[in-house]
């Protein structure tokens, strides 16, 4: 009891202290260390809070009623679901904080690190409190702290035009999210005085089915735009590359997961789940996000944008799990539904680890090569062996290769989808195989994409002077990434321990009924009920390890032969230059042709020849772009309309004080009239 009651204030204190002290730090160097110290204290305390709540399954409550008492005051109430997401936040924050110490050194003299430290800690505070919030006021306050602080973090390199554009997209999307979330909460709240989540649960029970549907739609749109589901994903590929790498790791690994948290909290905890179309909507949104995310990722040659699109894909996978769970739940198949929800939670945790790891490893590369363009990297495995290994572990995890964590959770998502055959309505059950197909295609393409990302960036010969001169990243950056790599391996191998723990978390979600049979003592196997399948990551890991061991022993001990080392056979080629290498564009070209309908690629080939003879080519310029028709179709009209309205409204603002006085009087009259008319 003591540990918990101390840890929660310690967490808040760590973040707030880190934020305030960083702001008054005497030098940039001091600011870097103070920022990290505050964040480390905060996240370790957050881990302690989460661990305590998860172990005891007792909610931990902290109230500060005096802050804005009219709105209900600050209420922190950590239940197991919140604790799970708090753990995800802390698991991402701790390595990011350590990583930031060295990474932000590059910004010294370029942007204010004191301000950065303030915003970094406020961002972490906001994310942690979102997971702990116990009433609407606390939730919305933390949500806005998180959103605004992350906006300022994205704008760290505000001297770059692209960053400013990315910031604009991000702030617009994040405020759009708030605009939909506020009415959602207002609809849920039974009265102005009763805004605690417990009251909302009561309020939700009295809503008509139509209103519940509207609340659900608002939640999907509002939380979905934060989570980055298609078509609300447009800010991710802009904001993630623009932000410093450890901030990208946090935004992509952790912040977007809070959108998932919101959907689970509102739809399944506060409203106890709903009709089948809720799950159907989630399944469709998830499948489309998963497939489109990975398809756009394949076309990206900017390492961090590629990772950002993969976040869209993985959010899609998580939502597929949620959707499958929700449909099964609405047909009363509680045991199978639990698998879907557990798969979603598991993939949430796993994605936080491997996406964080990939962004940190990509950050190492960007830090040393000063470019995000994969076509200018290459050969980094020789200069940065550890970073290469880290990136490889992350790639294998995100490509769902056993025995890493991505494999275990995608396996569970598949199990939840295969369980769809138990649904009594064939027209609903038919949607599941389609989702299986889309998810399978997405996972296959994800593997192809990471073959590209790793192969082009780290293998072969350096394609630019920057890549040739790259050195291994500083120790603190490597240590931070190794922490996440270790988590990836542990979460994968220890899946049979993690999954029962996730069932325990789901027990706390109001609308779900968890079959006690589902949570057996942790053993070697993860079982899916009704003998759909079972999996033992431990045994797979042991098998893989033994294969490697046998090979090594055979080669080096048993089959002893004198070795003669020579060059790789290159067909007798005399000189090889980086220009002969396979490029990322070339690797993705076949898929670009297959999916040309989606990409609508534009090509521009300019050949300039010698003025005297067309046979002497002087230069060839090839540019090709994938048309973002999503934005053209969906967002451009909105932007144009907004601009039109803006131009119209500008006419009101003439600069004449007299006219403004007329406006004031008119507004006053209108207000009085309205009071008189509708008493």
């Amino acid at each position, binding site marked *: 009891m003591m540990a918990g009651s101390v840890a929660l204030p310690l967490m808040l204190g760590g973040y707030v202290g880190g934020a305030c002290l960083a702001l008054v730090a005497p030098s940039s160097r001091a600011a870097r260390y103070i920022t990290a110290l505050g964040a480390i204290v905060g996240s370790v305390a957050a881990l302690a809070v989460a661990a305590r709540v998860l172990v005891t399954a007792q909610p931990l409550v902290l109230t500060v009623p005096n802050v804005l008492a009219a709105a209900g005051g600050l209420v922190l109430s950590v239940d197991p679901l919140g604790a799970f997401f708090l753990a995800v936040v802390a698991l991402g924050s701790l390595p990011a904080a350590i990583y930031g110490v060295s990474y932000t050194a590059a910004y010294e003299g370029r942007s204010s690190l004191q301000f950065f430290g303030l915003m970094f800690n406020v961002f972490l505070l906001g994310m942690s409190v979102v997971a702990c919030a116990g009433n609407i006021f606390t939730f919305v306050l933390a949500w806005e702290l998180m959103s605004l602080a992350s906006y300022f973090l994205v704008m760290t390199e505000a001297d770059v035009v692209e960053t400013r554009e990315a910031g604009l997209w991000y702030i617009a999307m994040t405020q759009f999210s708030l605009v939909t979330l506020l009415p959602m909460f207002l609809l849920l709240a039974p009265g102005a005085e009763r805004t605690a989540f417990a009251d909302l649960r009561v309020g939700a029970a009295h809503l008509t089915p139509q209103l519940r549907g509207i609340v659900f739609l608002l939640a999907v749109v509002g939380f979905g735009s934060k989570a980055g589901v298609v078509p609300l994903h447009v800010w991710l590929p802009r904001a993630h590359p623009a932000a410093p790498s450890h901030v990208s790791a946090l935004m992509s690994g952790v912040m977007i997961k809070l959108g998932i948290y919101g959907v689970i909290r509102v739809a399944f905890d506060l409203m106890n789940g709903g009709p089948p179309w809720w799950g159907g909507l989630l399944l469709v949104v998830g499948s489309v996000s998963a497939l489109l995310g990975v398809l756009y990722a394949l076309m990206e040659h900017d390492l961090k944008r590629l990772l950002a699109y993969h976040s869209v894909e993985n959010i899609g996978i998580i939502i597929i799990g949620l959707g499958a769970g929700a449909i099964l739940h609405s047909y009363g198949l509680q045991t199978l539904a639990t698998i879907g929800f557990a798969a979603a939670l598991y993939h949430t945790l796993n994605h936080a680890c491997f996406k964080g790891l990939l962004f940190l490893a990509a950050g190492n590369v960007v830090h040393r090569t000063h470019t995000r363009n994969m076509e200018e990297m290459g050969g980094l495995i020789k200069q940065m062996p550890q970073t290469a290994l880290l990136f490889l572990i992350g790639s294998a995890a995100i490509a769902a290769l056993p025995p890493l964590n991505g494999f275990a959770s995608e396996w569970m998502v598949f199990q939840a989808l295969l369980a769809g055959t138990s649904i009594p309505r064939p027209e609903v059950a038919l949607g599941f195989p389609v989702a299986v197909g889309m998810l399978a295609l997405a996972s296959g393409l994800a593997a192809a994409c990471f073959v590209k990302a790793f192969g082009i960036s780290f293998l072969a010969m350096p394609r630019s002077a920057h890549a040739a001169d790259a050195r291994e990243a500083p120790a603190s950056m490597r240590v931070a990434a190794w922490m996440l790599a270790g988590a990836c391996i542990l979460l994968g191998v220890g899946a049979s321990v993690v999954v029962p723990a996730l069932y325990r978390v789901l027990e706390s979600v109001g609308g779900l009924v968890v079959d006690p049979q589902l949570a057996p003592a942790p053993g070697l196997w993860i079982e899916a009920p009704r003998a759909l399948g079972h999996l033992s990551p431990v045994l797979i890991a042991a098998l893989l390890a033994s294969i490697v061991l046998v090979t090594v022993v055979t080669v080096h001990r048993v089959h002893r032969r004198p070795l*003669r080392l020579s*060059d790789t*056979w290159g067909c*007798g*080629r*005399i000189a090889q230059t980086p220009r002969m290498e396979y490029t990322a564009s070339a690797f993705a070209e076949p898929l670009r042709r297959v999916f040309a309908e989606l990409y609508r690629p534009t090509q521009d080939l300019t050949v300039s020849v010698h003025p005297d003879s067309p046979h002497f080519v002087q230069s060839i310029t090839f540019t090709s772009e994938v048309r973002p028709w999503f934005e053209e179709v969906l967002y451009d009209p909105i932007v144009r309309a907004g601009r039109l309205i803006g131009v119209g409204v500008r006419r009101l603002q003439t600069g004449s004080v007299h006219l403004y006085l007329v406006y004031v009087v008119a507004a006053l009259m209108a207000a009085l009239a309205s009071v008189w008319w509708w008493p």
Partner: protein
Amino acid sequence: MQLFSKIWRVGLVTEPVGPTDVEAVEIGRALDQRIKTLFGRALAIREVDAGSCNGCELEITGLTNPIYDMERFGMHFVASPRHADMLLVTGPVTRNMEIPLRKTYDATPDPKFVVSVGDCAKSCGVFADSYAVVGPVASVIPVDVHIAGCPPEPLDILRGILHALDRSDRQPQATR
């Protein structure tokens, strides 16, 4: 339809295979025996054109035609020196091919044989002293056996390969 009518109209245009070349079969059998004792499996040959006029290549190609058909005696040409037991090098070594030839030799796993084919490979023939020529094959990589002729006939080449294998006092690969 046009195709079938054409086949019907034209009929067979290949000449009938002549009487079997008894000598080729004899040499082939001997090769087969020797290859089996030396390697216990087929002999894989990688042909390297180090700058030849392609006369020797024509004759080497003849080894795979229906008359000689060397594959029946357990010899075949492979596409990479990594798979080869024997290099068959033709032509004077040109400047452009000097390093690739060395690399090919280096890439061929031990134990290996090198057979140079044609007069040019021995003495550079009419290309001797050309600015583009480095020298005979033996000046670039060690050669086991040389097959004379401009170009040597397929039978000569078979004899040369047999000679290279016979001359070798190497036992099957385990000793090396």
